[in-house]
């Protein structure tokens, strides 16, 4: 009997240890902390990058789906010249158009481009979603996607800001980016052009821009923290 009691108590102690000792590791999964509060476990930069990259990939796939559905129901013919005005409201943002160009660009510039893109799409997507709810021809489940899309842009921007802060903290990034953090800086006159865009064009442009964001983030990650996956 004393042997049994002893073994049971050892097991209990072990379980208690597991429960309490596992808590520090569980903090790794906690949401991103602002200003590195006390008791908050800071994620590593690679993990942060992975998170935002996954997020952007999800965002792009949703936009791709929406665009395909829209094209299917409203614009059956393809290969039309002049079909799209190709006048995205983000055309004035200079974005590298290839791998070499993106690699040649400085980290700060690339980061700025990403942020600019994300900021530029927050309002248009929200309005797009609003217009879709009124548009009864649109399929119901697509309206969920438009809502999700606008949310994701917002979340992704915050995530990228966290990454930038971390990089600045680590000294990887210079502090020149911080001046561009506030959304108001991106509101330039002429940014209201998006109101003139038709819905389809908006979807087309956003699909492209979300792909840009995803690729830029990947390039940035493999340049700054070249771990597995690169």
């Amino acid at each position: 009997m004393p042997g049994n009691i002893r073994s049971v108590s050892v097991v209990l102690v072990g379980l208690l240890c597991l429960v309490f000792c596992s808590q520090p590791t569980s903090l790794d999964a906690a949401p991103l902390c602002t200003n590195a509060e006390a008791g908050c476990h800071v994620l590593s930069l690679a993990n942060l990058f992975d998170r935002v990259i996954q997020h952007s990939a999800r965002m792009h796939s949703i936009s791709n789906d929406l665009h395909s559905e829209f094209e299917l129901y409203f614009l059956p013919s393809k290969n039309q010249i002049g079909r799209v005005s190709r006048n995205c409201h983000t055309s004035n943002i200079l974005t590298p158009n290839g791998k070499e160009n993106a690699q040649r660009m400085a980290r700060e510039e690339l980061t700025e481009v990403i942020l600019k893109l994300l900021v530029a799409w927050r309002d248009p997507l929200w309005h797009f979603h609003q217009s879709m709810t009124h548009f009864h021809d649109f399929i119901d489940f697509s309206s969920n996607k438009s809502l999700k899309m606008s949310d994701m842009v917002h979340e992704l921007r915050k995530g990228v800001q966290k990454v930038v802060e971390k990089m600045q903290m680590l000294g990887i990034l210079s502090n020149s980016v911080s001046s561009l953090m506030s959304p108001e800086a991106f509101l330039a006159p002429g940014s209201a052009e998006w109101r003139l865009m038709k819905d389809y064009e908006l979807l087309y442009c956003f699909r492209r821009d979300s792909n840009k964001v995803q690729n830029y983030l990947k390039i940035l990650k493999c340049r700054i923290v070249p771990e597995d996956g690169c």
Partner: protein
Amino acid sequence: MACARMVKHLRLPLLLLLLALAAECNSMSPPEKPDKLGCRSPDKETFFCWWTPGSDGGLPTVHHLYYKTEGQENMRQCPDYHKAGSNSCFFSKTSIWVEYTVIVEASNALGNTSSDPLTFDLMNIVKPFAPENVTVVVNIEDSPHLTIQWHTPSNIDTKSGWVTLKNQLRVKPDKSKIWKNYASETQTHFTIYSIDLGVVYMVEVRCAIDNSWSEWSNTTFVKVPNFSRKDNSFWILVFSLCLIPLLAAMIILILKRKTVKKYILPPVPSPKIRGVDVQLLKSGQSEDVINAMLLNQRFPVMIPWKDQKEDYLIVSDKETSYLPLEKKKIFILPLAMALDSEVQSKETSEVDHFPKDSESSSEESSDKTESSQLLTKCSSANVLNDEKANRLKGVTEKIFQPFGIGGYVDIPRHEHMQEADYSRVNEVNGDNILIMKKENIPHTLDTQGQEGSVPDNYSMVKEVNSDNVVFLEKHSESVNASFKAKGYIDWVNQKPKNLHMTGHSEMGVCPQLVGCEYVDTVPPPAVI
């Protein structure tokens, strides 16, 4: 005049000729429009386009591809018509996230024909090639599994993060119709454990860039062997080695099954009566049963107790027959029963032999038994004990009455006997012989149940000669004597007959004992 007339006449055939020539020329035409334009980027950095040319119109036709990107006004020509094969154009320097417009123009001597333009963005035409060098290795040593390895298509840049590849493979048994898909994210190797032995498997691999999947690779066939040869021979050897001793043990057991049976199940001893044949009993003849129970039974021989004490017989006189009887007890007992509780018997083989006047072959106590027998048998005679008789050892008071009617004399264990009761032993001849004194008292022991009376048919022991001879005195008194003598004589006469009749063994003890009634153990003659 004649010339003009000739021209007039020639005009019509010339016209006809021209028409004919014109008709021939109409089979040649400008080329048809090239069709089925397609473009593909295997690595998100380069791309190539292809087309299907139409009929060439009978004239040698060349095709040109012209492209332009969005924002440009002028069409530019294809930089490389050869790298991607015939009727194709390869673009090595590209821009992504820009719209391309591509047109193919076929031209021959008679004209040009352009195809429909194709607009695309590079990010939309990304489709990698299938993986290369797919190798499948079967391993059945520990547990059967397939190890599949492949290479990513060449020229794909994953290091810079520009391209992220996903892999997928599918496996199915040869006979089945259903593929089983497995996802391998960025690894270029995979292990499948759930395979069956003796089945041919087909394996295919494909990869994807940004959710755009390639074609499946060429099928790789692999056969999973049925068993591991090494294991099999080893187990066969072990099995056969274990089998041989088992077989040997079985054979031995079978051959010696009776011994084994005796060992495992020892026979339970069942009660047996010596000399009784159970089978005979079972056969159920009652006479045999009676014979078995009664006649064949050998009663244990009572061996005289080997006491240091010497006991001797007391034979009472005629005159002294009125003496207190405490020393005499006369019994008539049934067959072969011990007289007294004081009788102690030894259950030995000699005891067994005793009632029969046993053989001289009875070894150990033969002397003693002889003596006892001698004495008892001659108890009717005037056998008197003396103190000398004390020397007789091993004589007990045990008196046996052999078969037949007889009387017993109880011999009390008194060492000191009164002389009056006894006849004197004159001489002891040998170990066991008492030679009685001649006395005038012709009395014999009455063993017939009468106290003190001397039966008529008894006579005194006159002399004992040799080991087994006792001579009786003649009575000359009365008719009794004569009778006695007669009886005696008769008896004597009879004796040898009886003696002879009874055979061997009984004679050994007392062959020439005369006058003793108890010589025989056979049913006594009705002498008395």
